[in-house]
């Protein structure tokens, strides 16, 4: 049976089609999910894509967090369904309190767009099994509010529990605390990532194909589950 990975489209999402393509290239069936629909259509995992959901009004991800589809995503994530939030999706996961902390305005105040080197810090999550710990990858990064912040005790807890999934190498593009590029929840099924692995899955359009591992990882996770 083909694994079905849902990709939510909110008004203002713009990387939903890229995420769907990455899912397809990884060998799963992408399923388009609509923000007003509570039904997840029997998907096995969900990707919350990048973009500017609801125009980023109020705060990034603050309004989409209360969309009907998120009621079900939050409920299923708590039951163990793998959920990956990329960029705006990461912001939605923090606003949903599925992940701790918050994403704030880049310290430079500038929107940053670059090919970013990362180090994978934990390959025990649903979305990073196909990487090795310490592996360095390059994927695109593009954000204006990508600076991860949290209380010192939350940061210490994330570090102690190995929940820092990826860290920026060489250059911190947005002032993120402790160079954090991505984190997971305690169970490891929910991952939020500021850079964009879905833009690094084909040689024609990405700087590398090193982002594909996030999408192949979840397939392995689901097959083994």
């Amino acid at each position, binding site marked *: 049976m083909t694994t079905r990975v849902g990709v939510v489209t909110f008004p203002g999402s713009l990387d939903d089609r890229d995420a769907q393509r990455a899912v397809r290239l990884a060998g799963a069936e992408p399923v388009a999910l609509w923000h007003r629909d509570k039904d997840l259509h029997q998907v096995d995992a969900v990707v919350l894509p990048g973009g500017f959901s609801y125009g980023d009004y109020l705060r990034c991800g603050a309004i989409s967090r*209360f969309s009907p589809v998120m009621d079900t995503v939050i409920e299923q994530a708590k039951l163990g369904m793998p959920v990956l939030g990329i960029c705006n999706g990461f912001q939605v996961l923090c606003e949903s309190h599925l992940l701790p902390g*918050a994403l704030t305005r880049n310290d430079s105040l500038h929107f940053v767009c670059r090919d970013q080197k990362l180090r994978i810090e934990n390959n025990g999550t649903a979305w990073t099994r196909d990487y090795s710990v310490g592996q360095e990858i390059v994927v695109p990064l593009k954000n204006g509010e990508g600076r991860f*912040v949290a209380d010192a005790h939350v940061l210490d807890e994330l570090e102690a529990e190995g929940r820092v999934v990826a860290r920026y190498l060489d250059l911190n593009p947005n002032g993120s605390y402790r160079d954090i590029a991505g984190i997971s929840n305690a169970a490891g099924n929910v991952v939020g990532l500021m850079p964009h692995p879905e833009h690094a899955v084909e040689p024609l359009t990405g700087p590398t194909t090193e982002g594909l591992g996030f999408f192949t990882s979840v397939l392995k996770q689901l097959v083994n589950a």
Partner: protein
Amino acid sequence: MARVVVDVMLKPEILDPQGQAVQRALPRLGFTGIADVRQGKRFELELEGPVDDAALARIREAAETFLANTVIEDYTVRVEEEAK
């Protein structure tokens, strides 16, 4: 109609790059002697009914769950004079 104002500010320990940019621009424009600037949000809520305890409690709940992200922001709620 009554108006309730919700002010939302980044917590003091959270860097406010917008406020800093404004602060750096002020002396260039001749406005000296300003030691710090922080930028926040103000929400003006026009109520349909009276501002009673129940209405204020609902507004505090909205501020807590939606208008402010209490991970990084503080908020205050206050009643303004009757709107015209």
